[in-house]
């Protein structure tokens, strides 16, 4: 599949149509717009809501191991199940779910290339029925924190170049012109980006139909900004979901070894007292160079 380093983590819509009712396969929809599922979804697919089921709703964090196990068990997913995730906005939050599944060691998890958009555009079968799978007993592995970056790692990358920082937000967010994506609430005190970061918007990794660009195109995209797999990479955005999409691209489609997702992202850095911030046109020009 497009010469990707790990093509086994992607399935196309035809594969899902053929396997959606396979007892060894579970299909889960994860959308930015959590109302999309109810309108119609792939028959047999379940929904996970990113804002209630894929995060700790008390403190700011990803799911705990225990909560992840509960979610998987309630979804009828066993450790050996092939988990296929898809969603709207080119698999934006589907990648967030994929990232957490990998953190907790689920072996066979895949994204449906093109996501919900491609399924709709192709006239794929839709259902409004919510499945009720038989619960399993799911035991997750200890969290693999080599996939996740925290503030100290982002600070070290910025101060000492210990890793390449990739800001995957829009150019307007990167420069500080806007504090959140257009139309969404502002969630930080300051605009701009982490000093030293390169701006490679996440959506540039996708084609118009929502599928991922070829490995060659992706290598060119990231390579033009000095992200070529020769040193560690930390991806970040606003809350860590867009950057999980870029993390997926860098780690699985391009096969870079050391890629982490800094899910604290700009809502952490941009609210820190005393944190250095780069902003403005000069920074933007550098980010695009």
């Amino acid at each position: 599949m497009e010469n990707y380093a790990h093509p086994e983590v992607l399935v196309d819509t035809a594969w899902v149509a053929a396997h959606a009712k396979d007892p060894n396969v579970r299909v889960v929809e994860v959308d930015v717009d959590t109302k999309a599922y109810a309108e119609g979804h792939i028959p047999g697919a379940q929904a996970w809501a990113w804002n209630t089921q894929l995060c700790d709703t008390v403190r700011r964090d990803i799911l705990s191991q225990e909560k992840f196990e509960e979610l998987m068990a309630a979804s009828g997913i066993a450790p050996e199940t092939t988990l296929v995730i898809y969603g709207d906005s080119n698999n934006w939050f589907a990648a967030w779910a994929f990232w957490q599944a990998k953190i907790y060691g689920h072996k066979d998890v895949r994204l449906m290339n093109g996501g919900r958009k491609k399924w709709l555009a192709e006239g794929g079968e839709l259902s409004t029925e919510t499945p009720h799978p038989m619960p399993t007993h799911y035991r997750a592995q200890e969290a693999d924190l080599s996939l996740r970056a925290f503030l100290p790692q982002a600070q070290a990358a910025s101060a000492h170049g210990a890793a390449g920082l990739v800001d995957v937000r829009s150019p307007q967010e990167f420069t500080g012109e806007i504090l959140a994506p257009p139309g969404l609430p502002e969630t930080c005190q300051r605009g701009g980006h982490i000093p030293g970061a390169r701006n490679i918007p996440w959506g540039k990794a996708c084609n118009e139909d929502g599928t991922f660009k070829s490995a060659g195109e992706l290598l060119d995209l990231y390579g033009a900004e000095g992200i070529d797999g020769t040193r560690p990479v930390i991806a970040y955005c606003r809350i860590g979901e867009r950057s999980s999409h870029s993390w997926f691209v860098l780690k699985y489609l391009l096969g870079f070894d050391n890629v982490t997702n800094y899910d604290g992202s700009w809502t952490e850095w941009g609210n820190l007292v005393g944190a250095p911030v780069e902003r403005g046109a000069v920074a933007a020009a550098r980010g695009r160079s």
Partner: protein
Amino acid sequence: MKAEQYQERKIEIAGWPVNVASYRLDEVWHSKADNVSPGAALSRASGATREEAEQKAIARAGDLLSRTRRHPV
């Protein structure tokens, strides 16, 4: 049930590029408006015709986008 006559187009609302998708599910038309960059859903609406569904989604998106502040850089 299948999505029929799926269509997308890009327009500008309140100075921001917006992607408007629309399609028919059974007898109901659905529309969704996203901000193009990054691609987040702004609004969703339905109606008896494509035009009605799109107009509702566009109106709601316009309301949200008009509140977006641009800061000097």
